[in-house]
């Protein structure tokens, strides 16, 4: 069991205090409140949590060592670039392209509709050519049209 302080952890990760509090509140970060605004957390679950947030290994070790120290007033300088990228909440500027995975009849139709209405499409196909299952069919009922 190690002890952490919300403010300190937030500072070290370069994120807002409330983000850390929310993690604890919704159970994402499995920490139990202790005396003096401190939280206790299992070493292992803390590592797992940091890993799931995409924090690099050496950084985790550093954080663990830091957290294990006797808690004092937060002296750690704020890192120049935040360790965890802030969650991108923008949707005001989405990307104007779509990736379609699978080049069968459904993938082709989806691609055409999107490309015809103003979006750039990447059509991904595992094989060397598109067409999928329908290209195999000889004829289609009820019109007996050639599947091509």
């Amino acid at each position, binding site marked *: 069991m190690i002890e952490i302080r919300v403010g300190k952890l937030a500072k070290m990760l370069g994120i807002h205090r409330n983000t850390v509090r929310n993690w604890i509140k919704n159970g994402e970060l499995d920490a139990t409140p202790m005396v003096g605004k401190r939280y206790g957390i299992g070493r292992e679950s803390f590592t797992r949590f940091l890993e799931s947030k995409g924090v690099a290994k050496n950084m985790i070790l550093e954080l663990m060592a830091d957290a294990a120290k006797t808690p004092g007033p937060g002296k750690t300088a704020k890192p120049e670039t935040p360790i965890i990228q802030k*969650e*991108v909440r*923008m*949707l*005001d*500027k*989405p*990307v*104007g*392209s*779509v*990736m*379609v*995975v*699978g*080049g*069968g*009849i*459904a*993938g*082709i*139709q*989806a*691609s*055409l*509709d*999107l*490309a*015809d*209405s*103003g*979006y*750039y*499409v*990447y*059509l*991904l*196909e*595992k*094989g*060397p*050519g*598109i*067409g*999928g*299952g*329908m*290209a*195999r*069919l*000889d*004829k*289609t*009922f*009820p*019109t*007996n*049209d050639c599947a*091509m």
Partner: protein
Amino acid sequence: MECGRHLNIEILTLSEVVAVTGQAGAFSVTVKKNPRFIDMDKCIACGICSQKCPKKVDDEFNMGISKRKAAYIQYGQTVPLKYAIDPKTCLFTTKGKCRACEKFCPTGAINFDDKEEIQTFSVGSLILSPGYKPFDPAGIDFYGYGKIPDVVTGLEYERMLSPGGPFHGHLEKPSDHKEPKNIAWIQCVGSRSTNRCENGYCSSVCCMYAMKQALITAAHLPDGGRQTLFYMDIRSHGKEFELYYNYAKEHDIRFVRARPHTIEPGPGNTGVTMRYVTEDGRQLKEDFDMAVLSVGMEASADALDLSQKTGIELTAYNFAKTGSFTPVSSSRDGIFVSGCFKGPMNIPSSVAVASAASAEASKALISAKGTLTREKKYPAEKDLSGQPPRIGVFVCSCGSNIAGVVDVAAVVDYAKTLPYVVHAENNMFACSTDTQELLAKVIGEQNLNRIVIAACTPRTHEPLFQDTLKEAGLNGYLVEMANIRNHNSWVHQKQPEKATAKAMDQVRMAAAKVGLAFPIQELQVNVVQKALVIGGGVAGMNAALGLADQGYETMLLEKTDALGGNAWHLSTTAKNEKIRPMLEQLIQKVESHERIEILKNARLTSSTGTVGNFTSSIQIGNESREIQYGAAVLATGARESEPTEFMYGEDARIMTHLEFEKELAERKDRVQSAGSAVFIQCVGSRNTRRPYCSRVCCTHSVQNAITLKTLNPSMNVYVLYRDMRTYGTREDLYTEARRRGVVFIRYDLENPPLVAKTDGALTVKVTDPILGMPLELTTDYLILAAAIVPNETRELVELYKCAVNADGFLNEAHPKLRPVDMAVDGLFIAGLCTYPKPIDESISQAKAAVARANVILSQNVMQLDAIKSFVTDHCDGCALCLDVCPYRAITLTQHSDNGHTAKKISTDKALCKGCGLCAATCPKRGVMVHGFTTEQLRAQVYAALDLIG
């Protein structure tokens, strides 16, 4: 195919998703691109690498029946038409020797240093459509697949029938290559079974494909042969499918309700001997020349892998998990699913959900619309005035489709002798992307100004060639197609010499006509970027909401005073989701949307204009109003019919599905205390009056039967059915119902149940086909699965000139490939008005209609077809053509000239479809159609009669 030429579609072949990071609107997708070992820019698809390649491997495209080389293309019309080297089998990549292809490749395209590449793409949304895997029956030993050569799967048989397949369209037995006369199909192999596989669901497509194969086989064989289908239930639950089933029965396809349990090698080690038990308990043994296993669909390993990499949830059957109200959304925001990844489905459903997925995928990206796309710019058209025709003739081999019958080289030589023809050549596939480039090059080099394409049908391929001409600086209407495939090589397969002569005639006619062709200017229409939705049910509301979310002002027309339609009367979906809360939420969203205007008690009274620019009058109560819109979605719905049989209306205990839903909701106690309930299926459906299947009733009855058994496990619940049609994963409900003790008894159309009332007790008499004995059931409830009938649309059909089928359902433009478009451009359909369907399919269709309408509404200016009628100086205003014009595009006008008043007609270019009825009616060449002038047609006829030269 259009996709290969689209400016805004980049096809990444041999590629797989490795990881997806980021969130909806801004994903970053890591893609692994496997090496092709052939430079796509240099490959000209000449096929020499494949010829020289010494390594033969099973051709997976032909289901392993034939061989291909390690250097290969999948099939003749592959997009992109570029060869690839299969590193798993190539001698050089596996053993370090050979490199024959490299030596012989004329363009030096072979590159064995090609490496796997990892690329990252930024995209706003993802659509996953990895498809299905045909079930592999090798594990089911009693069918003998893999051991007996004449046992094949449905997909293998499909390839055997195909002209492009391993046997070039000549049907033969795999064992001795003789023609099979007597073929059996076995349905539900790898579907509806949890015994030898885990696929408890119905694959939905096999009944129809087996019937199609049986009918095509009958047409293939000189004396028709003999075809037998062994089935459990025939599931022809799609639009016009039941008619196809009836047609198959009328054409001597034999249907046997049995599940063969053993297949053994036939006498003399060819064919098969099959053992089966009929419904009445007889054990039979029968010999067939071949057995076709109608294998079902299952989730592919790729799909599983993809779901893990993209982090989306799957169902127990490994299909993508979706909700009935959000039919194309995966469990991860911004990632959508389509096609058979959602579950087994046929082509039209796949196309519809694909369009739906594209609508959903683009919804979140509207603010970025058009930011990454490019527009096509054509070079200025060359001025041809005063130039004599210089005709180029391109004769397509279509693989062996044409060249297998017609002597294409002779046709090319002949074409060179025709007047004005300055160039003629033969192409393997005229429609391939590479030939298009070649065509443009030749036009430039030879200074050609008229083109003849002797290939297939202009219906599918003319736009492609027109586009190529435009790219080469020619007007798109200077091309003429001679259909030497559909009109010739396909129908004259047995007379190659006569077919070659006919092909020459066809080319001569086309050349004569195109020599007189003149450039035609395309018409442009300014698009009114507003939409109209007719019908305020679930489909209509979803369509309106979708269109409004795409940014268009949308009017929602409802004939009654309330939104919601049939959904008010339904309790849960097949996935057991409650409908009422969804409906209330949907209505609330529609009502509060700033871009939706709801017009209740309204109906359409007139309509003029055409795609991109419609004008209509609507009547709301006593007021009349004019509206303008660029596209419309028709979602006029359907309703439950009122039964005329089984004593309906004579006793309160006899009720329809919807009435029983109400009973369940309002008088649960009474239902719970009932001792027994009987459901009768196909009431008013699948008979001579309504020859279609109402699709939803089997699932509905089974669901209610389960509800009854849950309320009161000791209740006797019977379902009297003809074919149980719980298609797709709905099959699980049927299994569940049987597990809970619901009794299913089959009856025939000729021998329906008899309902009687004696001393106040309601009894149903039916003959159980398995016991072979009549049963009498006394019941407290008799629930009739009444047919679904379309709402009245005669007025709309009249106004829009759109099409309905014999049953009154609105028709789509193409039953397979354009399931939500109507034949009238700019009109789309969704929901029950096209055919009975459950709520999730209605919503899919509505969203698909949004995507299709979006294609029109997203443009400011739209190009229209240029084939229109025009008035000549010969017109004297006799007005004969006015009556024949089906589009009301002709009006009579008066104009004065030097004091003379003369009458003359004028045509509305937007309304005219170029059908030519006016030109045919006109006695004095006063009106003609561009591209089909009297001179052109006359030249064509003279050429046919060989009167020139």
